[in-house]
């Protein structure tokens, strides 16, 4: 009895599989010894290992709203700790050498031009989170002789190119908010090596640094770390979100909704810097 049609197809199918499997198996066997299966697939599709591009958050004018009444000591400290941790900001006790990206201060120091002695009691007590205002017209950018600090054209964040900073501190003199710190000493001596963030650099002695609105997280599709932390804590406490982040050019954004409905302040508006950090009181 000859091979019937059904049997022939079976044999043909199996041998076709075998012929196809051999080169595939050899690809897996060759050079791939130390790869896990998922890594092998990435490799076959010519993707670098461990590469997962996130969808970047984009805007044309990033802004932050600080809901002052929702910020308490705990939230303020948590924000600072989280920010300083992921950006490898050294913890230096000497106030002359201290480096800070975000910090809390009291009303009279934050709103120097709107301060008077009979201010509301709770305003006197509340911690006011301060950070770089990412001004629309940043004076620090205007004075930088090397263009190390510049405003990103795409989203308005005032960032620093540490490779270019020569440490002249013009920007520190220009910034009316004290948002910039100078590295008088080598910051690495004050960073715990075990706890540093290996995905972000440190700075070196002799450069100025400041908040960057977490540009590196935005590129991964995450909002700034302080906002993440503050919102988490606010939710736990059942309060309104203490910090809100969004696009000021988008009329439907969270920040625009807040600014439309609540009374807000900006720091030293008469100087014409046009801060992008707003305070709701």
């Amino acid at each position, binding site marked *: 009895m000859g091979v019937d049609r059904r049997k022939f197809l079976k044999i043909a199918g199996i041998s076709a599989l075998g012929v196809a499997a051999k080169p595939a198996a050899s690809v897996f066997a060759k*050079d791939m010894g*130390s*790869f896990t299966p998922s*890594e092998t697939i990435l490799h076959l599709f*010519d*993707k*670098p*290992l*461990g*590469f997962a*591009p996130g969808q*970047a958050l984009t805007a044309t004018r990033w802004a932050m709203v600080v809901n002052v009444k929702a910020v308490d000591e705990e939230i303020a400290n948590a924000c600072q700790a989280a920010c300083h941790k992921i950006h*490898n900001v050294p913890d230096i006790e000497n106030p002359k050498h201290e480096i800070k990206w975000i910090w809390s201060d009291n009303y009279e120091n934050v709103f120097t031009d709107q301060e008077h002695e009979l201010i509301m009691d709770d305003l006197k007590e509340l911690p006011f989170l301060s950070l770089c205002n990412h001004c629309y017209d940043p004076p620090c950018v205007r004075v930088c002789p090397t263009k190390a600090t*510049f405003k*990103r054209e*795409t*989203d308005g964040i005032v*960032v620093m*190119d*540490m*490779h270019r900073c020569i440490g002249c501190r013009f920007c520190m003199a220009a910034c009316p908010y004290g948002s910039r710190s100078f590295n008088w000493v080598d910051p690495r001596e004050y960073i715990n090596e075990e706890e*540093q963030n*290996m*995905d*972000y*650099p*440190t*700075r*070196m002695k002799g450069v100025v640094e400041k908040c960057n609105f977490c*540009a590196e997280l935005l*590129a991964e599709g995450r909002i700034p770390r302080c906002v993440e932390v503050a919102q988490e804590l606010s939710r736990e406490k059942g309060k309104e979100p203490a910090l809100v982040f969004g696009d000021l050019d988008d009329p439907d954004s969270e920040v625009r909704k807040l600014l439309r409905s609540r009374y807000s302040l900006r720091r030293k508006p008469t100087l014409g810097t046009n801060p992008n950090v707003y305070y709701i009181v």
Partner: protein
Amino acid sequence: MYDGGKVITGLIIGVILLALPLWWNLGAEEKKLDIKLPKKEKKCVEANMRPNHMQVLDLWRDSVVRTANRYYINENGRKFEMSLQKTCMSENCHARKTEFCDQCHDYTAVEPYCWDCHIPPKEPKETM
């Protein structure tokens, strides 16, 4: 020539002194570079990186910092995140600075200031 003997002796001594680095190292063993290439990734971002890595790194840094473009597509269409710490020095590639960067840089006495700020991957401390 006046004082010919002295002049010529002086010249000879001078030439010998000037050539000091040459004959001092004569017969010394040539230093061998012990560069360890990654075991996992077989292809670097671009070809011919030995003479050109500084141009690539320079381009990457300007692209990321100044134009906020963090992804690089090489000749073969492969996409990389432009990051010294996260891509070049990743686990799968040059995970040990002392076995890669330092080999040539030390040999040629080049001291790039990358590592003043960028954090090299942690290496297990081995006792030799």
